[in-house]
């Protein structure tokens, strides 16, 4: 590959290859090498960053501002850190209406308050018309480490939990684009995952927020890190009716759809029921389910296996190339 293709940004295998083949050799150090959502640093702090290029910038259930706060907050939470401070970088296309910008800033303020973080510094650039698509945002986040993910210590019998329904964000953004003639009551699931922080003290051993590439990609990555195959049950995976219908019509598998307010959690079997109960007590976790486990009965090490609704078994592969462009 001599030029960067769109697929490199998709969150799937090509992006992982890009990181392994180009970024790590150029920049690698022991913190970066963990390839975690956040860098865990000396002094008990974690640092993360994310760029936001979603199109359209406003969609049912949120906008690029809410994404910019929640996405970065969530990267800290799942890395075991309590989010504290954000920086905010804005790259604005010349000609953007100030009313639109004000609306986005209000969203950022509301989201920051909800996630209990402060925006403490930032930067603004304006580029010529046509050199950006309305507005791009970058947020970096700093948090205090409160838990330690330990994916390497997962063993057969450990459970996998999903905090809610899949794909709400992807479908809401697709509908907002109006490209596929989709209409329905769609709403992005964009939300801060602070409610998961106490779970680090209740037995959570690993967490990941489900963004580009969907549940299948996130769990495929976990499968590569644990020494045992993972098995999940399609029947236990919560889907809302609108998302299910939209995915059927579009021929897209919901297991690959991105979310912006959902996570997978791994825990010992004895801790899973307590974690499930805690999730369901929060409005954001009402549809939480235990969806699978680490096991050795089916599949080989590194494989993610799905028990289908029909009761059959098949491998679930990570996403290799772009499913949907610019959803976050």
């Amino acid at each position: 590959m001599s030029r960067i293709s769109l697929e490199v940004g998709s969150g799937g295998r090509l992006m992982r290859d890009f990181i392994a083949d180009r970024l790590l050799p150029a920049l690698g150090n022991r913190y970066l090498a963990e390839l975690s959502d956040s860098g865990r640093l000396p002094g008990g702090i974690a640092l993360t960053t994310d760029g936001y290029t979603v199109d359209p910038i406003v969609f049912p259930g949120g906008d690029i501002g809410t994404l910019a706060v929640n996405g970065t907050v969530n990267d800290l939470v799942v890395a075991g850190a309590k989010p504290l401070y954000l920086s905010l970088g804005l790259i604005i296309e010349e000609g953007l209406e100030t009313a639109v910008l004000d609306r986005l800033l209000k969203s950022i303020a509301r989201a920051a308050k909800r996630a209990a973080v402060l925006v403490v510094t930032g930067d603004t650039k304006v580029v010529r018309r046509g050199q950006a698509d309305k507005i791009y945002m970058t947020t970096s986040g700093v948090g205090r480490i409160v838990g330690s993910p330990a994916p390497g210590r997962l063993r057969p019998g450990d459970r996998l939990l999903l905090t809610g329904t899949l794909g709400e964000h992807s479908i809401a953004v697709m509908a907002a684009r109006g490209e596929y003639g989709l209409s329905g009551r769609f709403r992005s699931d964009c939300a801060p995952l602070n409610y998961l922080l106490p779970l680090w003290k209740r037995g959570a051993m690993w967490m990941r927020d489900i963004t580009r590439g969907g549940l299948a990609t996130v769990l495929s990555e976990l499968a590569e890190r644990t020494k045992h195959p993972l098995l999940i049950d399609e029947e236990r995976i919560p889907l809302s009716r609108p998302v299910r219908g939209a995915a059927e019509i579009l021929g897209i598998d919901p297991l690959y759809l991105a979310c912006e307010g959902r996570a997978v959690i791994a825990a010992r079997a004895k801790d899973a029921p307590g974690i499930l109960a805690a999730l369901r007590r929060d409005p954001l976790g009402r549809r939480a389910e235990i969806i699978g486990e680490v096991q050795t009965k089916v599949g080989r090490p590194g494989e993610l296996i799905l028990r289908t609704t029909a009761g059959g078994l098949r491998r679930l592969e990570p996403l290799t190339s772009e499913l949907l462009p610019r959803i976050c």
Partner: protein
Amino acid sequence: MTTRATATTDLLRDRRVVAPLLREIASRAARLPRPIRIMEVCGTHTMSLFRSGLTAPLAEAGVEMISGPGCPVCVTPNGLHEAAIALLSDRPETILTVFGDMTRVPTSRGALQTAVPARGSRLKIVISPEAALEEARRAPEKDVVFFGAGFETTIPGIALTVRRAREEGRRNFSVLSAFWLVPPPLRAILETGEVRLSGFLYPGHVSVIIGLRPYAFIAERFGLPGAVAGFEPADLLLGIRSILNQAVAGRPGVALEYARAVRPEGNPAARAVMDEILEPKDALWRGLGRIPGSGLAFRPEYAAFDAERKYGLEIADDAGDLRGCRCGEVLRGLIRPEDCALFGRVCRPDAPKGPCMVSMEGACLVHLRFGSPGGRT
């Protein structure tokens, strides 16, 4: 989706419905000589089978499923793909409209998606032939060509769009057609006798159009049972169970196990539209060679909408597959994707060597995406 449709679908996916069907299939299979090999013709059936993880339980029950040539992108030979690439690269002011899968089929001239368009030309992915006609309305100064591959399911829709274009007097719209009919390649496969089959699972949505009669020769002349089936897991098993019932009773026929969508007589109105605008032709298939009466061409009065005639395109008969690609043998049911040395290693979805790894219904992509636990990646 209505609540009732969802309830039906849920039921047809439920393991409590599927498990007893598998047991019934096993008990019937036990009464028949082995091997029992059923060809599922339609690429979407292949996808459904693998996606629901049913191939291994079926094999345990004694039934082996063989994929057939029912993937329109896959059976379209490279000569047509290269003609489309030539149109885009060599003709200025042309908009080539196409379904997404078609853009990634690799040829000796590269793929459509990486072709450099001529001045003022571009490639546009559409999701329907109507969207392609809309491009022609929107841009009267451009020549719009719709490169459409399909079986009897899709052909009436394209034919209707061409009729509409003619009614509107649209001079800047034409179709580069790759129209394939399902029954002729099945006859060809049976006549070569190179694959030993016990029966056929007939396509669900093609049968909506053509009904049951076109398959009758398979039961009458070749003595093989068959059933038209839907796409949910239980639909597939109901079709397979019916085939085995026919075999056990020694009464091969064409059963209908998808009555909620298919009528025995099919859709005469759709066939009338096809007949009005198209006529049979001998067509060259990837892997199966030239089969008489297996394709459709525009009738003379529609020549202005046939891109091949309009632009004097030369479709190469011998534009071969990429070296090492055995897609043609997969389409004939001769080999499984895993038997190809390139499968999963050199030929992958992000670097396909043939259309069977490009199309969502291609057997190779299906086997890779929905493989069984412990299988080769």
